[in-house]
């Protein structure tokens, strides 16, 4: 027995299209910014440190490839989303099948990205600087127990800023925890 392309699935395909378009736009923007920043920073660094040109060129090329991969990724995402939209609007299952090669391409690029990231982390961990690294000794007072000693108005001001930053960071951490907990629940069709 074959499954039908239900109205519920059509609705899900339409909202998936909307969010893939949004994600593709964001990724293309980030990729373009990264590419421009790489060219500008690598150019400036190469003129300031001519002796390190080889290293700067290698790092610049790596970042340029990364940003081009992001642009390519967003293109595939847009095409994938377009097929989903066609399926949803015309209520036909055939475009869903046509979207599959784009999806495979998306996951293949993502896997390549992860593999290259792991390789670069492994290379960084094997460097002499990383091997020489020793963690700082434990502080006498754990971070959450530290209370700034208030002596004068300047120190009171600084303590207020630290308190505000700690509060913002605590809220961010709590928000992050909520995101993870919500993600743990699987999605159910509305």
């Amino acid at each position, binding site marked *: 027995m074959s*499954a039908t392309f239900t109205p519920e699935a059509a609705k899900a395909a339409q909202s998936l299209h909307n969010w893939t378009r949004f994600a593709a736009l964001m990724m293309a923007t980030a990729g373009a910014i990264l590419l421009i920043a790489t060219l500008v920073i690598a150019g400036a660094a190469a003129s300031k440190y001519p002796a390190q040109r080889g290293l700067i060129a290698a790092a610049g090329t790596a970042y340029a490839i990364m940003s081009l991969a992001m642009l390519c990724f967003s293109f595939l995402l847009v095409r994938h989303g377009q097929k989903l939209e066609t399926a949803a609007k015309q209520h036909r299952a055939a475009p869903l099948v046509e979207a599959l090669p784009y999806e495979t391409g998306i*996951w293949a690029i993502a896997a390549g990205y992860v593999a290259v990231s792991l390789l670069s982390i492994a290379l960084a961990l094997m460097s002499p600087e990383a091997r020489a690294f020793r963690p700082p000794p434990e502080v006498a007072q754990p971070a959450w127990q530290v209370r700034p000693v208030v002596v004068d108005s300047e120190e009171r001001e600084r303590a207020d800023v630290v308190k505000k930053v700690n509060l913002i960071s605590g809220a961010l951490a709590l928000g992050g925890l909520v995101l993870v907990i919500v*993600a743990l629940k699987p999605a159910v069709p509305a």
Partner: protein
Amino acid sequence: MASPTLRKPDDVLPPEYFSRLAANAPLILAIGFVGLLFGLVVAAFAVLLLFQVDFPAAAGMVFFMASLILTPSIHLLHYRAEIVRASTADGDALARVLRQQMRFWRFIGVSIIVWMTMVGIAVVRWT
């Protein structure tokens, strides 16, 4: 004349649809699993920071970054589970698969905005 309860042929998913979709499952599992491990390492580092530095804000921010890595990885692993679970006989399977994929891309889109904002603030602050 066809009965109105009969499905239109183009409404029916080809029988090989879910098996072709499942061909992506190993890649998705690998990406999700690596992301999950990396996110857990960053979260552990955040906990370590609480003991090693006297500035708790650093730990909070690192934990937030860990959650930005952990959340899409969990969405991906759920997506992979839905793909593997989907069968040609289940009419709701496609809706569940699409909805789970939607959750992943929604998070990716929003988190890219968050990352770009954080980088933007850092660049403005330190230049």
